């Protein structure tokens, strides 16, 4: 069974912290471009949008080699704006729910599908795994994310914010009207907290150390892409 869903992959940024010559979407991890793992996990999604900016032609060419039915959205201001701008642009025309997947996040396919099938505003969180996590502070009882913080808070359960979220377009528009449309996705989300959390198994590739950890993690799980 398929569901009407829009997924926006934001890969407009330059990926400076990783220090490679390619935009992160095209960095090879376990033998394939990072975005290849995402495209395979989302091959069942009909309305797929890829936001491009830095090295856009290269990203477009690669994605088209996998599937043609993608809507490419340009974030020409990728140097000055963050993922919130890309997500907002990618969601143009959508009514209802839209999923945001950062271009540097690899999620196990079954986890990603289960997350999307929640069909409600929800935030993806994971056990802290990166060099510089942004914590999603959660209410222990309700399992709702109540705040984001660079510091973990001992009085609250702290998971790492993954960047994966499912929001109503009305929430995005409301945040844009508050002037929060050009920073990070978590800033777009903050006015709408608390929002339920969903724990996923995923790895973000932000720094060189993240890359090594992600490759080790992916090598354990890569068979799941074949089985998916």
């Amino acid at each position, binding site marked *: 069974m398929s569901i009407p869903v829009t997924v926006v992959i934001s890969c407009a940024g330059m990926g400076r912290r990783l220090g490679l010559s390619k935009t992160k979407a095209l960095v090879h991890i376990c033998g394939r471009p990072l975005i290849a793992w995402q495209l395979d996990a989302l091959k069942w999604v009909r*309305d797929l949008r890829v936001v491009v900016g830095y090295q856009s*032609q290269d990203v*477009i060419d690669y994605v*088209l080699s996998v599937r*043609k039915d*993608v809507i490419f959205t*340009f974030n020409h201001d990728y140097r000055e704006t963050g993922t919130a701008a890309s997500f907002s642009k990618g969601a*143009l*025309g959508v009514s209802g729910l839209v999923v945001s997947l950062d271009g540097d996040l690899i999620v196990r396919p079954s986890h990603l599908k289960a997350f999307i099938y929640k069909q409600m505003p929800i935030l993806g969180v994971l056990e802290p795994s990166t060099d510089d996590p942004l914590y999603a502070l959660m209410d222990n009882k309700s399992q709702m994310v109540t705040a984001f913080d660079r510091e973990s808070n001992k009085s609250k359960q702290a998971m790492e914010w993954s960047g994966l979220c499912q929001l109503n377009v009305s929430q995005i528009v409301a945040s844009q009207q508050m002037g929060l449309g050009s920073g990070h996705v978590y800033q777009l989300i903050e006015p709408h907290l608390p929002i339920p959390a969903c724990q996923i198994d995923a790895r973000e590739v932000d720094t060189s150390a993240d890359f090594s950890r992600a490759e080790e993690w992916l090598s354990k799980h890569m068979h799941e892409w074949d089985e998916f």
Partner: protein
Amino acid sequence: MIDYFLFDLDGTLTTEELLPRIARAIGVEKEIAELTELTIAGDIPFEYSLRHRVDILNRVPVSTIQDIVADVELDLHILSFLQQRSDRSLIVTGNIDVWIAKLVMKIGVPVISSKAHVIDDRISDLYEVLDKGLVLNQFSGKVCAVGDGHNDLGMIAGAAVGVAYGGIHSPARTLLEVSTHAIYDSEVLCRFLSQL
């Protein structure tokens, strides 16, 4: 959100470029092909190219060209999209009114094009070469523009939603620098535009 939809004709609504099709039918394919390729990429000025191509294709009667053009295959998704919104859709083409006259009647959507006078079934004067960027000045509402070639640049750059379309060949690279979207499948294009 969008008040008007502006569409290129050649290679967007039609599933092949018209001038090469005419050229193939009358045996001047090679001369036209190179000019068309350079024009789509924006490597030579559109007006220079069009006038040169008119000189070549004017070897045959306008009525013959009309018949060749009228038989061109149209993308049915895009045609249906435009016909369902014919009151707020416009085809904007640098092609020439007298060459596309029969095709335009079949399409049933308003068209703005380049213009020529005809004497004895031949073009006597190409008196207006359309600047697509200026067409936007005619609209006060929000416009979505769709095209594939460099001569669509002004129209796409000035539109609220500008789509570089790659249905039959990759859109000109210059378009990717100014467009808000790039789409390579007509069904996906029409589904997206229907949401706007």
